[in-house]
């Protein structure tokens, strides 16, 4: 396996008065088809990591490589979802899903000709996250969990090679969150897409990921890398086993150290 996303010795600071480093000498490498989770204390530069890996920001030092190429522009093969669903309120669910196809080539040029096909694809995707037949509804007619599912579908509609999730379940209640863990688990198992999940929920990270990276407090670096050997497919029940709890505890102690 080769690295699909690789940050090598990356340092970055945002322009502005307070130009302290957000991340410093950060190295991380995620393999193709792998589910990686990044955890760390708040403000440790997790979101900066997301922006660097998708080409929204470019590092002051070090290199970022995605799919074998050095990142010098937005990568275009990534789908992103955030804590807020950021759906467009003037578009129906289906129309919201079609938005990336209106931007990304080659779909963009084929929008008119293949509209029906794209709509079918959107409907299939909605069905796969349990939103069958909800395509004609507007975002405000959906619950928070349903909006977040829609946001996930939007991140996947253009069949990206890389899925970047920035605390996508942070604003949801515990039950909905666990439901969506299973949704994302199944989506990843079916498509073998490479996923980078940024979160501060350790249970979420351990349940979903193949590998968990722990970041230090600002300026962020990777301090621990832990392979999660729990067998797949994983059921929610696994979160109550001793093995699972032990991993969570171990990671937690690293975070506590990282905060100091």
């Amino acid at each position, binding site marked *: 396996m080769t690295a699909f996303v690789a940050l090598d010795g990356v340092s970055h600071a945002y322009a502005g008065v307070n130009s302290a480093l957000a991340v410093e000498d950060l190295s991380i490498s995620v393999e193709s088809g792998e589910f990686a989770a990044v955890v760390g204390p708040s403000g440790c530069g997790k979101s900066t990591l997301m922006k660097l890996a*998708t080409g929204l920001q470019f590092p002051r030092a070090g290199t970022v490589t995605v799919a074998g190429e050095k990142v010098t522009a937005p990568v275009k093969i990534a789908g992103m979802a955030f804590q807020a669903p950021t759906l467009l309120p003037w578009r129906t669910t289906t129309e919201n899903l079609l938005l990336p196809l209106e931007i990304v080539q080659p779909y963009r040029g084929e929008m008119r000709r293949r509209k029906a096909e794209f709509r079918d694809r959107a409907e299939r995707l909605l069905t796969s996250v349990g939103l069958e037949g909800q395509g004609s509804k507007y975002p405000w007619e959906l619950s928070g969990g349903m909006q977040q599912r829609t946001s996930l579908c939007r991140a996947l509609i253009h069949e990206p090679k890389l899925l970047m999730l920035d605390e996508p379940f942070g604003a949801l209640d515990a039950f909905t969150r666990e439901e969506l863990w299973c949704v994302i688990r199944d989506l990843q198992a079916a498509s073998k897409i490479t996923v980078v999940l940024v979160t501060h929920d350790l249970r979420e990270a351990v349940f979903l990921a193949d590998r968990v990276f722990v970041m230090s407090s600002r300026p962020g670096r990777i301090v621990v890398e832990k392979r999660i050997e729990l067998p797949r497919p994983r059921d929610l029940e696994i979160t109550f086993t001793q093995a699972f709890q032990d991993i969570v505890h171990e990671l937690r102690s690293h975070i506590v150290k990282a905060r100091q």
Partner: protein
Amino acid sequence: MNRVEMLIKLSPWLFTIGLFVVWEAAVHIFQIPVFFLPPPTAIAQAFVDYSGPIARNSWITLQTTLIGFGLAVGFGLLLGLLVGWSRAIYAGLYPLMIGFNAIPKVALVPILVLWFGIGFVPAVLTAFLISFFPIVVNVATGLATIEPELEDVLKALGASKLDIMRKVGIPRTLPYFFGSLKVAITLAFVGSVISESVASNYGIGNLMLQAQAQFQVPLIFAGLIVLAVEGIAMYAVMAMLEKRMTGWAQRSGFAQA
């Protein structure tokens, strides 16, 4: 429709009629002279006596206002998009616009007369100058408040600035834009009437000035009422437009109550 809704539907009319009834009664009870405050009946009589000039001049004022307003919409929208497009342009133009907006437009009328002569053109331009500012500010605000996460989602897909503007910026600005039209149209009336009363031979503003010179106080008030009615009618048109174009943004019962 139940009784409460019926009452809500009727209440604008009841309040308006009530205002005129109280007005009429007050004038009679306190024996206020007609040349000081004419009763609504005397104003109604003025409408009958001067129906020709009133109709002609109110049509002129409406035209003047709408042309000035139309210019303000076009220019305001363009400038708003420009200001919202680039932070450098925003930083550069904003203080200038605020300064310009602070100038009383009545002070500009003599300059406009100097350039264009007395009459139609200065009135249109005054209506335009007074009403474009809220449109610019609202359009620019709509663009400036795009969620950064949404911008990231699109940029990561390789969206250009123009893409983001077309797919997100402009649609999400529309509620701000249509909201600003309600403010702008009423301001446009203020502008055209100011200019008509200072430097024109036509329009309701001029009619009121002449009526004042001849001490025909009921006719002055008739002019005021024409302006109020035209203002309400145009506001209603803008509100309807707003609702039709941006219904998605007006879901809250709070706004409709």
